[in-house]
């Protein structure tokens, strides 16, 4: 089990178009990922999802708060001990274009970690070869086709599947899947989601799932938790189905409203919420972080910051209200 308490992270930035000031990527985030459990983070680009994923994978430092892995607080450990814990967490990179070394064939890419794995497990070279084929088949691609090829010879979707196969080479306990199905074909997306669900059930692997495609969160297991993060703060959190079907925070509602409607099959929700303006890092940090863009803000929202209230289904908003934002069946 991995828990985070009050995790904060600030990036010091030099002046440029996006900011010219420090960015508070995480502002005191609490979370808990049970062994074999699934936690999904959703939010716009720049809201801190990748930062959180990298912290959980031990690839990024944090300024304050605590990460506890299986009862051991990470902050008290020396670098090497900490790395040993974090090795059990594998990050699946979000960008399939830069995640693979362009000068190596897929066979070479998979062979290095598998050869190491074979030595650790006292297995043969043939095992490593067999395992490479098995993993590629698992993620839905033809080993015979991709193994001899270079990344540029594969289509975008295939590349992402190779990236996932590579993460699986080390038999991780926690998978941090950052946008890892967004690039994948719809026909295979369900397969990969089912695969993540399956890995949870069979191997008790935990999944920290980071996605823009909120609907996919429903498919990695119905016991999952959904966290909605905005500018580094968790603004709504609860069982995945509850947050999707009865969102109460205007930001969650805006995210759900933005999901494309399958015209011809569905109709848009009756109360779609559209932010009044675009996300801007330079928006005031005083009141509610979403106030500048919130169609429902009041004076109080601009001076005070709501904190996350509620146990099972929590939200950080002074005026929470359920709204019908998700699409409904066209025939209904």
């Amino acid at each position, binding site marked *: 089990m991995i828990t985070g308490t009050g995790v904060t992270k600030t990036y010091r930035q030099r002046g440029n178009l*996006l900011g010219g000031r420090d960015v508070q990527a995480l502002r005191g985030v609490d979370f808990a990922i049970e062994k074999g459990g699934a936690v999904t983070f959703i939010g716009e680009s720049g809201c801190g999802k990748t930062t959180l994923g990298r912290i959980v994978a031990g690839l990024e430092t944090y300024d304050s708060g605590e990460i506890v892995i299986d009862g051991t607080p990470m902050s008290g450990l020396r670098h090497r001990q900490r790395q040993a814990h974090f090795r059990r967490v594998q990050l699946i990179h979000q960008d399939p274009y830069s995640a693979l070394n362009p000068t190596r064939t897929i066979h070479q890419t998979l062979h290095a970690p598998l050869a190491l794995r074979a030595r650790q497990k006292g297995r043969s070279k043939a095992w490593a070869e067999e395992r490479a084929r098995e993993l590629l088949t698992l993620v839905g691609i033809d080993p015979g086709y991709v193994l001899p090829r270079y990344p540029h010879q594969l289509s975008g979707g295939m590349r992402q599947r190779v990236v996932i196969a590579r993460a699986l080479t080390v038999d991780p306990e926690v998978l941090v899947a950052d946008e890892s199905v967004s690039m994948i074909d*719809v026909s*295979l997306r369900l397969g990969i989601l089912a695969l993540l669900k399956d890995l949870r059930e069979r191997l008790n692997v935990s999944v920290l799932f980071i996605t*823009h495609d909120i609907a996919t969160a429903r498919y990695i297991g119905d016991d999952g938790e959904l966290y909605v993060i905005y500018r580094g703060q968790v603004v709504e959190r609860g069982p995945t189905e509850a947050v999707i079907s009865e969102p109460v925070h205007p930001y969650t509602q805006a995210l759900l409203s933005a*999901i*494309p409607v399958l015209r011809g099959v569905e109709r848009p929700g009756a109360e779609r919420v559209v932010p009044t303006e675009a996300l801007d890092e330079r928006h005031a940090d005083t009141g509610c972080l979403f106030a500048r863009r919130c169609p429902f803000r009041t004076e109080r929202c601009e001076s005070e910051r709501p904190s996350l209230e509620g146990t099972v289904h929590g939200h950080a908003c002074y005026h929470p209200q359920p709204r019908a934002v998700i699409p409904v069946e066209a025939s209904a």
Partner: protein
Amino acid sequence: MTESFAPGVRVQDLTVVYRTPVGELPALAGVGLTLAPGTITGIVGESGSGKSTLALSLLNAVQPPGRISGGSVEIDGLGDVVRLTGDDLRRARGRQVGYVFQAAQNSLNPLKTVGKQLLDLGRSHDVADLPALLREARALLGRMGLDGGRVLDSYQHELSGGMRQRVGIMLALVLNAHLVVLDEPTTALDMITQATILRIVKEVHRERGLTTLIVTHDIGVAAEVTDSLAVMYGGRVVEHGPTMDVLGSPRHPYTRGLIRAIPRLSGDIGEATALPGRPPTLGTIPAEGCVFRERCPLRMAVCDTVDPAPAAYGERTVACHAVGRPVNLAVRKEYV
């Protein structure tokens, strides 16, 4: 200023092959597709189905080891672009046909500001009035909700993914092209940014009187913006028609399977079903018979030997032996 008109496009019997160690293999095999003037057409299909290859063919820009080996791409005002060469071709790209490449987010030059790259583009197209080009670019960026002046002064790494995507769209439009091809314009963007970009695409399309082609692997994106939807599989267009109709009552078994596989926000999780099997790659596309048969629930004997030719059913075109007769309502019910 060129005259403002939305060109129609007729792709006929287009074949594109890539050279591989086992010889030249077709990524597109006799594709036919018509883009009606002034419409937004979407191309959807799985990875490797040939979407980008088809999109690139509209500019005669298929790169070696690929080449167009047969067929034609007639664009109103340009003629058959397959026959264009040299300077004529270079001028057509950008001027008449604007293009946003797949992964445009990674295709800007990291060492030059956006403004510098814009000036390079202008010079390569012999634009006489460069200040006017800059003004036009600023106006377009402003139109897309960005501070044009600041974006032009920025380097790629100073822009977010959504901003880069809008820069790509600006570069495709700034020379006043009236046919615009967008390859995966919102892939890897978050939902709100995606919704914004799609709204911009629709608005600019309408305001400028464009003919627009959007390539996407995301059917939701196509559903949101397109008038007309083409579904590709194994280098063929297997179904094409008005978007609402294709999604509401898909006829090709592949289209049905694709729609059923979409993760949805509501309803029973079990209703979404993965399409069994995987799409063919260049080397595994069957040489004869229907390319979809390995994954098809309706496969018949004829499917093993005869590649189904696209046939018109009203506004719809479908290439499937099982769709030869009036639609079987018993099969369709679950999709309507």
